[in-house]
């Protein structure tokens, strides 16, 4: 049924439809509405789950590790500082092969306190063994969250569904909320591959010596690789029931593009407009939206970007001492192709600064003008700072 929902509520609806059993979360702007909606649902019975009002994000994920180990479906949500605090346990969750689902609202990291959208927080966790899926709008958010449970429980890896702060979390959009019946057809009850059981006691997560640890990590690597083929299949099934599909990546007008822009999150929506405008002016430009970031679908990037003349990656994040993170991953995916286009890296929208159509056009023209990238990363829209007076 189509409703106008706040993005946070779309998440809550997905969690409700997925019949999650244990929720544990700690409030942090801009995730708070998710937590509040879920509290309401639990309180009025729309969702019969145990909601643990833990005292920190670290404890939130710790509680879910306990709950998931005990064989129930689990969910949490967080952002920025909270995610950073969870870092140790992000590794733990994937290492323990627990299918926890998290909605991560991209928010800048402090100091200074900045509650607006920035991708550095989720991308800084790219090594933790979590599947990462980036969403562009609220419908995609709801759909992806449902798919996340299916995917996590299939490969036994935790899944992070990532949204932009405020643009998605606090903005109202029309969302088609599916019927419970249909969701049940797509997402059966959780059937754990292992759990603690007093009738069949076992110790989980003990000391592992070098003679076995490597194989366990390789096992995780293999599971991650499986996702590349399993996620499309899940999307296929989802499309069959609900009629919607997004793709691990979505190429827009890339077939004959000379320059391809790469974006993720809500910047993609703005970019769709810019591409249309440029095409109308005869520019051979394309757009590649990245949804699946972990595992990184390198093969798809090679196939789509290979023929292009230039690639411009727009990163709303930065890895200090290196470059924008999407740009790094794209360069790594392409580096062994015998010939591949140069990759231009642009940094925009850090700390919630608007990524306007002007900036995006500017990125296109800069890319077109230069044969090869002048710098590793070009920061868009930087102001001059008078350090004497600290005026911008």
């Amino acid at each position, binding site marked *: 049924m189509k409703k106008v929902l706040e993005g946070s509520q779309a998440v809550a609806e997905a969690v409700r439809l997925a019949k999650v059993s244990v929720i544990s979360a700690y409030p942090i702007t801009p995730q708070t509405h998710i937590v509040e909606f879920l509290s309401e649902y639990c309180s009025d019975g729309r969702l019969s789950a145990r909601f643990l009002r833990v005292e920190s994000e670290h404890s939130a994920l710790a509680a879910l590790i306990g709950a998931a180990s005990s064989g129930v479906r689990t969910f949490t949500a967080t952002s920025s500082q909270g995610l950073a605090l969870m870092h140790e346990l992000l590794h733990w969750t994937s290492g*323990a*092969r627990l299918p926890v689902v998290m909605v991560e609202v991209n928010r800048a990291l402090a100091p200074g306190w900045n509650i607006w959208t920035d991708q550095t927080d989720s991308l800084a966790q790219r090594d933790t063994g979590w599947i990462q899926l980036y969403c562009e709008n609220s419908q995609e958010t709801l759909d992806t969250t449902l798919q996340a449970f299916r995917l996590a429980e*299939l*490969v*036994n890896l935790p899944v992070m569904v990532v949204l932009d702060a405020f643009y998605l979390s606090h903005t109202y959009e029309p969302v088609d909320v599916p019927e419970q019946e249909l969701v049940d057809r797509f997402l059966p009850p959780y*059937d754990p*591959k*292992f759990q603690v059981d007093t009738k069949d006691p*076992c*110790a*989980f*997560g*003990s000391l*592992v010596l070098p003679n*076995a640890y490597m*194989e*366990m990590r390789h*096992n995780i690597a*293999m*599971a991650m690789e*499986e996702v590349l083929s*399993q996620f499309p299949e899940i999307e296929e099934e989802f499309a069959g029931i609900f009629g919607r599909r997004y793709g691990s990546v979505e190429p827009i007008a890339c077939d004959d593009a000379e320059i391809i822009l790469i974006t993720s999150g809500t910047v993609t929506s703005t970019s769709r407009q810019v591409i249309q405008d440029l095409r109308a002016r005869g520019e051979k430009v394309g757009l590649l939206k990245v949804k699946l970031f972990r595992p990184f679908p390198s093969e798809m990037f090679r196939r789509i970007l290979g023929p292009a003349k230039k690639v411009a990656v727009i990163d709303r994040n930065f890895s200090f001492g290196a470059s924008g993170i999407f740009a790094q991953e794209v360069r790594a995916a392409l580096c062994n192709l015998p010939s591949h286009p140069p990759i231009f890296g642009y940094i925009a929208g850090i700390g919630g600064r608007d990524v306007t159509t002007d900036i995006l056009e500017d990125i296109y023209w800069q890319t077109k003008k230069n044969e090869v990238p002048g710098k590793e990363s070009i920061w868009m829209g930087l102001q001059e700072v008078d350090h004497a007076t600290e005026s911008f």
Partner: protein
Amino acid sequence: MTEKKKIIEAIPLLVPHSYLTTESNKTGSWRFLKPRYEEKTSPCSTACPAGEDIGRIEMLTTRGLFKEAWETILRENPFPGACGRVCYHPCEKTCNREEFDKAVAIHSIERFLADNAIRNNLNPLLERNPAREQKIAVIGAGPSGLAAAYFLTLLGYTCDVFEAMPEPGGILRWGIPLYRLPPSVLQNEIARIEDHGVRIHTGKQISQRFLEDTRNNYNAIFLGCGHSRAARLNIPGEDIDGVEDGLKFLLSIRQNKNPSSNGTVAVIGGGNTAVDVARSIVRLGGKALIIYRRRRQDMPAFEQDVRMALEEGVEIKELLTPAKIIYDNKELVLTLRQMKVVGEDIRGRALVEPDGKNPDEIRVERIFKAIGEETAEPWHSPPEEGEGILSMNNSVLAYRHRGPALVFGGDLTNQTKSVVHAVASGKEAAIALDIFFREGFDAIGPTLKTCMVGNGTSPLSMEIYMGGARRSRSPHIVTYEEINTDYFQLTAKVSQPRLLIEERLRTFEEVDLKISAHLATREAGRCFNCGLCIQCENCFIFCPDMAVIRDNSSQGRHINYDYCKGCGVCVVECPRNAMVLEEESYEESSGGKSGSS
């Protein structure tokens, strides 16, 4: 479902989870110290001349197993009823509990167990050796003779006991007054000895000829005749009418010829006989004065009896010796010379010599001599050293080429003249004879050493000699420091009730009254059971490695050396020092550390 299975097969899961136990790690290989169950010897059992297994007796009593506790006594001593009353209990003086609060009242418990057996008409079940062909004659049915016959019977021999008096018992019947040992108790204990097969022939005086007479076919003769002739004072007036033999006086009381006695009576001597005479006088209505030539603390009489005598009004005059007795005007005048202490002998007894002052005189109704006894006949005295003569701790064996072997015991050979020493004699004689018959004269000495309790010149244990469980105990005597007193609480010692002094003076009824089973059990619970395992299971409770395993063995558990790390907690937490911690030896197994049992 099949789709899931397909996927699982395609993506098998490898998570850190357990599917084995830790049992394959034989942590016993870590050990450099090894604990072991080893019971040891309690000091009380070595101080008891009969070597009673006191720690075990108290353990069984605490559990309410009164019959088993009583049987444990009977293995080493057929007279618990008598000893529980009249023994001077040297055991209590070595009791480790004394350093904690107060020594255990071992004698009270022994008496309780004996009385309980009498009251409930219990029949003991004791180990006995198969019948042997040798026959032994015992002269004298006193404690040593009866004990000898009893132990010899347990060892399989046939015994005939010959007693000159009309009833058996010796000093137990004729010497020890009723207020210390009621006749019913004695009756019962002698009856039990007879139940074991001992034949007692009363009214049979034995002459020296008996020793040579081979017609009787006795292979050995035990002489337990005792010292029945009073020693003489050797002073003028000794034979005047009214100057009597103390022991004969006690005998006459027991023969119900109860002479009354008013007025003051002097009792010369400081031993048990003197005290018994004095206390009997008091009960007959008279006043008793004990005249002793040394100090009160030098008196050979048992301390508890001296104390009770004083409570009952007996007066002790120390450092006085009789010089002369004359009869004057219906009274006896006793001249006393004062003595002074000039030093102490190696045992701490005063060395005295006359003071030189003018002698005193006291006027009394009667005078009793109780300065010691001697053998009634010269052939009662054991021979001195010589070929074929073996002097043991409590007896002397004389082996002759012709005729039966002779064993002298009891007061004839014991330095300390007590019932328990008499029992020790009888036991020693029995064991010595058994060794003599089986292995010959030369084997006696060495074999006796193997059935001692503890080490050094310690008492003999019949149980050890007969190969009982006590044999496996270490001779190490447990000290107070080796007891883990954390497991004991200060508890008051039982106070055995007594007749009030006024009551005592009117009657020959037993002075010490009985205690209840509850009190006996509680008192027995105070025993540390030094060196014994009482199955408290501390070792099992505290083992961090589950290496103490309960089983059906007599120990009740064993140590699993595959896993025992030798931490030693069990040994320290054993309150009774019934374990040892030794260095692990690596030579046991071939090459490398020994890990398994």
